[in-house]
């Protein structure tokens, strides 16, 4: 009797295990994304920058990408960008 109820409980547990599954139903239509420069609900905006202005966002991106260029961060050491002639 105990064995039977144990098996029954195990089967029940297995049957309800699927209840924890997240729904994966396909959406009906693709949503349209907001522009990156439009205002964000995010709390951690880059210092000194506010969303909503496309030109300001592009300027921000430009200054940010230059942070990856050590030649622009260490003034006076930037080499000439003009291509050198191969010997």
């Amino acid at each position, binding site marked *: 009797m105990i064995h039977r109820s144990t098996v029954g409980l195990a089967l029940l547990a297995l049957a309800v295990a699927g209840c924890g599954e997240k729904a994966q139903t396909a959406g009906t239509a*693709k949503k349209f994304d907001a522009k990156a420069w439009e205002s964000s*609900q995010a709390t951690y905006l880059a210092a000194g920058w506010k969303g909503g202005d496309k030109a300001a966002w592009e300027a*921000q*991106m430009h200054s940010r990408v230059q942070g*990856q260029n050590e*030649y622009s961060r260490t003034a006076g050491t930037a080499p000439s960008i003009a291509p*050198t002639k191969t010997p």
Partner: protein
Amino acid sequence: MARMKFICDAERCIECNGCVTACKAEHDVPWGVNRRRVVTLNDGVPGEKSISVACMHCSDAPCMAVCPVDCFYRTDEGVVLHDKDVCIGCGYCSYACPFGAPQFPTNGTFGLRGKMDKCTFCAGGPEANGSAAENEKYGRNRLAEGKLPACAEMCATKALLGGDGDVVADIFRTRVLQRGKGSEVWGWGTAYGKPTQATKS
């Protein structure tokens, strides 16, 4: 603004996997999913080279072309994103992508293949910028915060560059010139090999 692009400088990458860690931490990427990984060629051989690889946000993205439910879209900045509410997790994009960018988490109790996940160039998804829903599905939207992808910004050796394609190409070109390799590292000769002289038979 030109298209957003990544460039990885193989001369500088030291295979530290900092970019991988930064990405996983920034977006709470689940176990078993790597939006970015470091690939090493000739591992263990002197002169081995490593590069950091993720979604390359292709101009003519094959994942977009093969998706049966058309869940992909491209932003104004050229970032290839997808809508997880439309994705059916079929995996076609995974077969089409030459970089192995699309990843599939195991979802739920029975370990089914979940919806596709990939590098978003830290640009989130179609939900409202910086919203909790966007964060849960796609991770953080750093572009909307006025920042660049975490992997590139946290790269210790600045091997991985990310941002406006024209600007990162200029930064990389400056480096190459500084190394003294000159203009031979650019152009058709480098990409496709030097032209061979036709031999007379």
